[in-house]
């Protein structure tokens, strides 16, 4: 068996699938193994198929693959849902004494491992612990020392008291012992290695929240929506430790307006939502830009349009983020590509917002948001955090920004497009800002010259930023390869692993993962150097591919996926191979 272990637990929503999966992932991480998790869930509270998958290796893992080595199946449907990923030798742990599974027979070539999960859980102190019994059994199957579970159980149940933790430890050991005593262990030859490495395990939403605090965010307002709510849940209770506040607004319109107010008062502010919420925020988005207020608006994308598939993956909002809102709105659109990039790009988003006094869209997607991944803790280096508050003017400097009648000029048309900024409370700096077209003092105007001056001024900020900032990409694979693959968002992980699969088939790929959607790197040179250009993204129409074609005036090939499921590494390798084969076919 390879060192790479693919494990899953599946059942009905409400069965404790998520917490069980998380415990196993944490145990693996604490044992110095790399982990990548993914969740399959439906938009309902109880019932409906749900699963939590854990891929683990001593090497870094960046994505999911089409393989499952150990499956804890709490329902028969779990086996059916995962049939494609099960293989010869896969072990299916199930409760042969429970009605849902009593007639279950493992498919040919697979090993059915009946464990009386419920009965053993009751013996350990309560039927609720059946998943933990299964975890203990899985540890024994994988030859993974069960002691590694203990810390994760303490973390999960510590708040409920030591006896609960102890019962859970007992439940896990009952599961382990059952496998040792009752079953022929020689059937399985899993033997997963542990290391002394210390990793942290977190998902994209958590990394965004952590990045926000590191960047000095003090005010967050939001309205619950999948898959962005984790950002709010992470910040609640933590932001307050730093003198900040999380406010659950009555709707998305309130959320963005509250964040705008707090930003106007000087707090670094953020709101997070998903596509439907971005729609509702669109009007105020224009106000944020016109009033030149720094604000970070996070869109964690899911399947659309309308309510679409709320718990499924998609990257379908790009067009809206780039072009949404009436009129012409200067903006930045930053889209991190990995969980650790979620941390770094969030910090960057706050700096961009304040430096240029412009709204910044911070874009995640469901796959990035809900997948936990292990990292070296150093990747979240707090010492490297830099804060740039831009042209913030205090009482001592205010004189140079007053007009002839001593009024502060919040929209002074500076050559770089960036005006001075005073925060309310600053003596002598009183001024108004508005969504109406205005002059340098913020007063409403319809004068043609002033209109042009202010529009140019606001747009100039983006031009200035294009010159001053690095709008770069991340490069992987062979930089001399004839085939260039581009992607954005969460696809980076699967693509990086796909490069390995393609390499085995002697196909060289140059892969660029682009984290800036606007402004974005100029890819003309890279595209001209390639024979084949393929853009990979989770949507039906190829929104990023359209943008690339427009920028570089070159036709690109597209690999799109929009069934609600993220790309898998082996799947991507296959689809790239198909594209290249097709490209070689000569019409007769």
């Amino acid at each position, binding site marked *: 068996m390879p060192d790479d272990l693919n494990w899953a637990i599946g059942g009905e929503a409400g069965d404790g699938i998520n917490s069980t999966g998380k415990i196993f992932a944490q145990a693996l991480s604490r044992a110095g193994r790399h982990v990548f998790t993914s969740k399959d869930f439906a938009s309902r509270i109880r019932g409906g198929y749900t699963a939590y998958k854990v891929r683990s290796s001593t090497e870094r893992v960046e994505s999911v693959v089409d393989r499952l080595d150990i499956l804890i199946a709490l329902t028969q449907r779990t086996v059916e849902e995962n049939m494609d990923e099960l293989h010869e030798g896969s072990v299916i742990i199930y409760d042969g004494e429970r009605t849902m599974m009593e007639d279950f027979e493992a498919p040919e070539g697979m090993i059915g491992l009946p464990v009386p999960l419920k009965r053993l859980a009751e013996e350990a102190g309560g039927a609720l612990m059946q998943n933990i019994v299964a975890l203990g059994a899985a540890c024994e199957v994988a030859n993974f020392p069960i002691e590694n579970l203990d810390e994760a159980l303490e973390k999960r149940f510590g708040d409920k008291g030591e006896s609960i933790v102890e019962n859970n430890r007992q439940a896990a050991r009952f599961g382990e012992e059952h496998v040792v005593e009752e079953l022929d262990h020689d059937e399985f030859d899993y033997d997963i290695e542990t290391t002394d490495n210390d990793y942290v395990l977190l998902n994209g939403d958590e990394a965004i929240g952590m990045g926000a605090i590191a960047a000095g965010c003090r005010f967050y307002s939001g309205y619950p929506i999948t898959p962005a709510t984790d950002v709010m849940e992470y910040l609640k209770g933590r932001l307050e430790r730093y003198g900040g506040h999380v406010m659950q607004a009555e709707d998305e319109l309130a959320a963005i307006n509250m964040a705008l107010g707090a930003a106007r008062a000087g707090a670094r502010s953020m709101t997070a939502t998903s596509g439907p919420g971005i729609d509702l925020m669109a009007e105020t988005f224009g106000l944020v830009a016109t009033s030149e207020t720094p604000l970070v608006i996070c869109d964690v994308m899911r399947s659309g349009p309308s309510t679409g598939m709320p718990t499924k993956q998609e990257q379908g909002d790009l067009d809206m983020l780039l072009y949404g809102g009436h009129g012409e709105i200067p903006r930045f659109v930053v889209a991190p590509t990995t969980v650790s990039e979620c941390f770094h790009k969030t910090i960057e988003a706050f700096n961009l917002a304040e430096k240029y006094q412009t709204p910044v869209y911070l874009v995640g997607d469901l796959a990035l948001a809900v997948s936990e991944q292990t990292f070296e803790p150093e990747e979240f280096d707090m010492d490297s955090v830099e804060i740039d508050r831009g042209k913030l003017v205090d009482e001592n400097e205010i004189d140079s920004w007053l007009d002839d009648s001593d009024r502060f000029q919040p929209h002074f048309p500076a050559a770089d497009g960036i005006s001075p900024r005073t925060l*309310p409370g600053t003596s002598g700096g009183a001024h108004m800002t508005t969504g109406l077209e205005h002059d340098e003092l913020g007063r409403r105007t319809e004068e043609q010259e002033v209109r042009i001056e202010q529009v140019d001024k606001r747009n100039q900020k983006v031009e200035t930023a294009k010159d001053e900032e690095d709008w770069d990409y991340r490069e992987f694979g062979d930089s001399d390869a004839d085939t260039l693959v581009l992607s954005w968002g969460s696809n980076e992980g699967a693509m990086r692993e796909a490069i390995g699969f393609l390499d085995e088939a002697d196909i060289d790929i140059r892969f660029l993962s682009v984290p800036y959607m606007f402004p974005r790197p100029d890819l003309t040179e890279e595209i001209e150097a390639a024979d084949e250009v393929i853009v990979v993204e989770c949507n039906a129409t190829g929104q990023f591919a359209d943008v690339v074609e427009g920028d570089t005036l070159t036709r690109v090939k597209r690999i799109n996926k929009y069934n609600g499921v993220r790309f898998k590494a082996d799947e991507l390798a296959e689809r790239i191979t198909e594209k290249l084969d097709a490209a070689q076919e000569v019409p007769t």
Partner: protein
Amino acid sequence: MSSDVRFTDFKSDKQPTWCPGCGDFGTMNGMMKALANTGNDPDNTFVVAGIGCSGKIGTYMHSYALHGVHGRALPVGIGVKSANPDLEVMVSGGDGDGYSIGAGHFVHAVRRNMDMTYVVMDNRIYGLTKGQASPTSREDFETATTPDGPKQAPVNPLALALAADGSFIAQSFSSDAQRHTEIVQQAVEHDGFGFVNVYSPCVTFNDVDTYDYFRDTIVDLDEEDHDPTDRDAAEAKIMDDDTEYQGVIYQDEESVPYNERHGLDENMADIPDGAPEDATDLVREFY
């Protein structure tokens, strides 16, 4: 804050484009006087307005101000006050802005009870879009879009506020300058969400709810021995459809504003140059 602030310090050099005789002049003057009388100055004051005639107020006043989008002024004010509790936050809107498009925010702002003041210029009509029915228009009020009247009950904003557990509910008449100023001033001084509905006649489009109408009918609660801390008495006044009242209708003297309940007492603009000192604890949580 300086003690020699005069209300004219809150005036901008921009001349209002309101119609001559508009009630909004008086409403705004009272707001400026209330701010000056309570020891505020333009540099510690933040005025938020929405859209419509009322929305122009930020332009005519001199203070820190934001003129936002239609109906969303209250959430902006809530954000401002959260971020910097030292600021005096005053939100102004009209009956359309506050009770139609912004009705949801109104109810939630009332129950949130942030320490701020909300002044609604209620003229019972849409003025800036040239005379359509508003949420407070009478049931039989004829306009271009409601030629036979809206044929639906007008919103009772005071009742909404009371139902949402409002801690300060008042009504005034813009033309009664002294009383209006006093009432807004009490709203500013109130610890919590001070809500004042101001009869602010539209001289151009509303020929029913006129200055004369209010002058003739308005009843001052001070002359009625009304006890504003008595919630039942307040309810009786609010549900009395036959009388227009002015004065403080209800005040919860025990009110503890949201910002105090949530310990919002720091200026959130103050952040360190880098990550907070103990930020590595945030990473450690994920081990």
